[in-house]
């Protein structure tokens, strides 16, 4: 066996906390090595050390790469050695072409003048390798996330990558794009490229990984060889969270009451292109105590539907009726939508849900300052009481409610967003990808919160790209395709195959409607 990389007894301290504690990681040449662990387990820190973001001397332990001790002082060093990391947040320049992005900082040029023919022909060759059929002159801006991910990989290939590190490459991808990406990884493996894959999606890891290293609290819990014996997802989860999670979705006995929210014949056009209908005659209803899922591909209009409903935050020429408790309500501004009893937890927590610079307390009360103030003056004590209550009931793990939300983990940030909307006192909550980018343990807690809300008689609409999550949580699942609701199934009748069939072949899906 020939190890391309050995990381030995790696330790890294941040002020007051040991992020990594004597971690050993050994990666064989030509394998796909998965790195899993909850958020904050130390995966990213380890990879930052490997790629030189934390330079040599900033950590303890040693790295042996290609049988040589390595001391990377920066990303440039590690890239020169053929170690390339692709981050979760893509590092492409949107308004440059694919070719320009591929060779950014590495241009094929003579005395500073770019050789475009050569650039284009090399780009085409690279794009062929990753299976992307786009002209080299296409702007990155015009590509979907999945294709952008492929451009990133092509960029890595252009740098003679030997060890490719992918940090949650499929987190933002649809199942189809994710599949293509995983296929590509397997293909690269055939060509002798070693990969380290960080992912929360265990089914993907099961498909491609040769070995799995599980990190927990900065330590290696286990390294599993997938070829030696079958590795079960339950086993990995148990190692990750340090406890048995027999039930990934907490139990709930639905007690469904009267219909709360009824949206009918909802139509929305694109904000810029008036002739493009984004939502077509969508109708949906939620009852008290009911959790209704919306399945569908990214771009099928789920988020657009939710946002247009919530104070016309998206789109133009919005028409349709919204009834709450049988009465027509005005949801034409966010303020009115909140006043009518709606809440919308956005898909993108950091960009749309939180004020990162502000503390937990101020984020929680933001949507309902009126309830903690008198004559426009905020009552500090009342506000603090509210924040403490939510910290306790939702289990936000933080030393103090005065902590900036920027410093919280994804799961805790999501709990802050949920607290904000619970404090606004809605009857119906629309949750858009409520568990995206959250580790397994926190996901379970979020599910518990959702169930409690339903038990309290609130209506919940849950948009999710993870089908098992919808199947595990919802009482009813609506399927969205190209802006229309093409299916509405009770959970008991739903399964992944059926939903997928509706998603890809909307027409046949209608038969079940």
């Amino acid at each position, binding site marked *: 066996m020939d190890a391309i990389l050995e990381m030995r007894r790696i330790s890294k301290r941040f002020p007051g*906390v040991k992020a990594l504690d004597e971690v050993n990681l050994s990666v064989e040449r030509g394998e796909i090595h998965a790195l899993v662990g909850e958020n904050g387990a130390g995966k990213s820190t380890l990879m930052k050390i490997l790629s030189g973001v934390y330079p040599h001397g900033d950590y303890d332990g040693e790295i042996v790469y290609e049988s040589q001790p390595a001391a990377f002082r920066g990303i440039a060093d590690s890239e020169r050695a053929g170690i390339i990391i692709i981050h979760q947040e893509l590092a492409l320049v949107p308004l440059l072409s694919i070719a320009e992005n591929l060779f950014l900082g590495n241009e094929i040029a003579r005395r500073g003048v770019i050789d475009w023919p050569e650039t284009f022909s090399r780009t085409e060759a690279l794009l062929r390798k990753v299976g992307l059929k786009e002209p080299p002159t296409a702007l990155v801006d015009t590509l979907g996330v999945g294709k952008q991910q492929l451009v990133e990989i092509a960029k890595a290939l252009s740098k003679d990558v030997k060890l490719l590190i992918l940090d949650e490459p499929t987190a933002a991808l649809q199942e189809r794009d994710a599949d293509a990406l995983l296929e590509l990884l397997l293909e690269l493996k055939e060509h002798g490229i070693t990969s380290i894959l960080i992912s929360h999606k265990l089914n993907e890891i099961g498909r491609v990984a040769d070995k799995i290293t599980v990190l927990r609290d900065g330590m290696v819990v286990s390294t599993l060889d997938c070829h030696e014996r079958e590795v079960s997802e339950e086993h990995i989860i148990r190692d990750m969270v340090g406890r048995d999670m027999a039930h990934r979705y907490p139990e709930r006995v639905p007690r469904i009451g009267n219909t709360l929210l009824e949206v009918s014949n909802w139509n929305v056009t694109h904000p810029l292109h008036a002739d493009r209908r984004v939502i077509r005659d969508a109708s949906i209803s939620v009852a008290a105590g009911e959790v209704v899922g919306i399945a569908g591909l990214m771009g099928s209009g789920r988020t657009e539907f939710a946002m247009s409903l919530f104070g016309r935050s998206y789109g133009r020429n919005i028409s349709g009726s919204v009834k709450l408790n049988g009465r027509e309500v005005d949801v034409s501004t966010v*303020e009115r939508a909140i006043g009518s009893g709606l809440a919308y937890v956005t898909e993108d927590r950091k960009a*749309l*849900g*939180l004020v990162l610079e502000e503390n937990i307390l*101020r984020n929680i009360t933001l949507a309902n300052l009126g309830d903690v*103030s008198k004559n426009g003056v905020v009552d500090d004590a009342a506000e*603090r009481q509210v924040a403490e209550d939510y910290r306790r009931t939702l289990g936000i793990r933080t030393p103090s409610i005065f902590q900036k939300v920027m410093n919280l983990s994804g799961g805790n940030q999501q709990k802050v967003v949920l607290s904000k909307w619970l404090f606004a006192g809605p009857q119906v909550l629309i949750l858009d990808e409520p568990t995206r980018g959250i580790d397994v343990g926190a996901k379970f807690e979020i599910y518990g919160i959702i169930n409690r809300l339903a038990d309290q008689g609130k209506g919940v609409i849950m948009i999710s790209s993870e089908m098992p999550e919808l199947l595990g949580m919802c009482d009813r699942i609506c399927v969205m395709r190209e802006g229309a609701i093409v299916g509405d199934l009770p959970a008991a009748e739903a399964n992944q195959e059926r939903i997928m069939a509706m998603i890809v072949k909307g027409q046949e899906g209608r038969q079940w409607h």
Partner: protein
Amino acid sequence: MALTKSAAETPRSSAARYLSNHLREYGMLLALVVIMIFFQIVTDGTLMRPVNITNLFLQNSYIIIMALGMLLVIVSGHIDLSVGSVVGFVGALAAIMLVHWQLPTFVVIPACLLVGILIGAAQGYWVAYWRIPSFIVTLAGMLVFRGLSLWILQGQSVGPFPRNFQALSTGFVPDLFGVDKPNLTALLLGLVAAGTILFMAARSRKRHQKFGMEEEPFGFFIARNGLIALAIIYISYLLSTYRGLPNVLITMAILTAIYAFLTKSTTIGRRIYALGGNEKAAKLSGINTERLTFLAFVNMGMLAALAGLIFAARLNTATPKAGVSFELDVIAAVFIGGASMSGGVGKIIGAVVGACIMGVMNNGMSILGIGIDYQQVIKGLVLLAAVIFDVYNKNKQT
């Protein structure tokens, strides 16, 4: 998670940790004190002479007043470059009304403030509702109002003004007790102000302690508030030995208190910070972000007009050049005071202290006879240093 832990488990003493988290706030105050002591020594005590202290307030009041409005604009994520020109324009307008049209002061002042509000509204409208970058809108405003003040003054200086208008700036609070020097009213008001500040600070600390949210060590609390109270009493004593409290000082103090309260304790203040911190999140939380942005500019226009009146009253004449490059001093003061260019961060007290630092440096360097050339260089470097200090501090924390 890693960071949350670091805050909880840091072994350093709580005082040291508190200091490092609040280095910026104490640093500002400390910097001001150090700068004052420095100039006090190198100017052989001229800086703190009653007459000079009085001048210091007269010279900087309009910068401080505009810094209050500018802080709100910058916190909301925008900038206003037009305030210098608005100062000139409103001063010119007041001069025309007072001198050419012979209108009474009590008509002119409200009319000019209204004009300022309209100017702010006109600019805020494009920024808030049309989403035109504030840099561009107010750059245009800067040119337009400079041009308009030249036009209405026909390139001439217009003055002098009636006494009751001058009193806006160069007037003093009369001594109610009739004794000439020291001015007992000034001393008494100083004592009352110091007492009020101490009382409010103690009350707020007590309330915070009750809920366990006070983290400032007691020693720091005493030192900080004691220093502020002593400074106020000392300055009011100095002023009392000259002509008493200038009217502008009272205006300034009241406005500072109002805006500090507004930003700290009201829902509108809270929403402005949220708007600047993350506009989209604020909007999706039901906050009318357009209206808030609009109001921030309206408010700025009003304060710029007030500053224009005070400045004209101080010079006792309106000139087409009045207010040139004031916007830069005001913006610099706000950034020295710790506000962030990207919005969402900054405090009223910071902006006021920032303006005081600039003012004391201007004044001190002028007393020393340092040329305007060096003065500009030094001021520029101080601004840069303050912001570098901010960024350094932030990087250290993460």
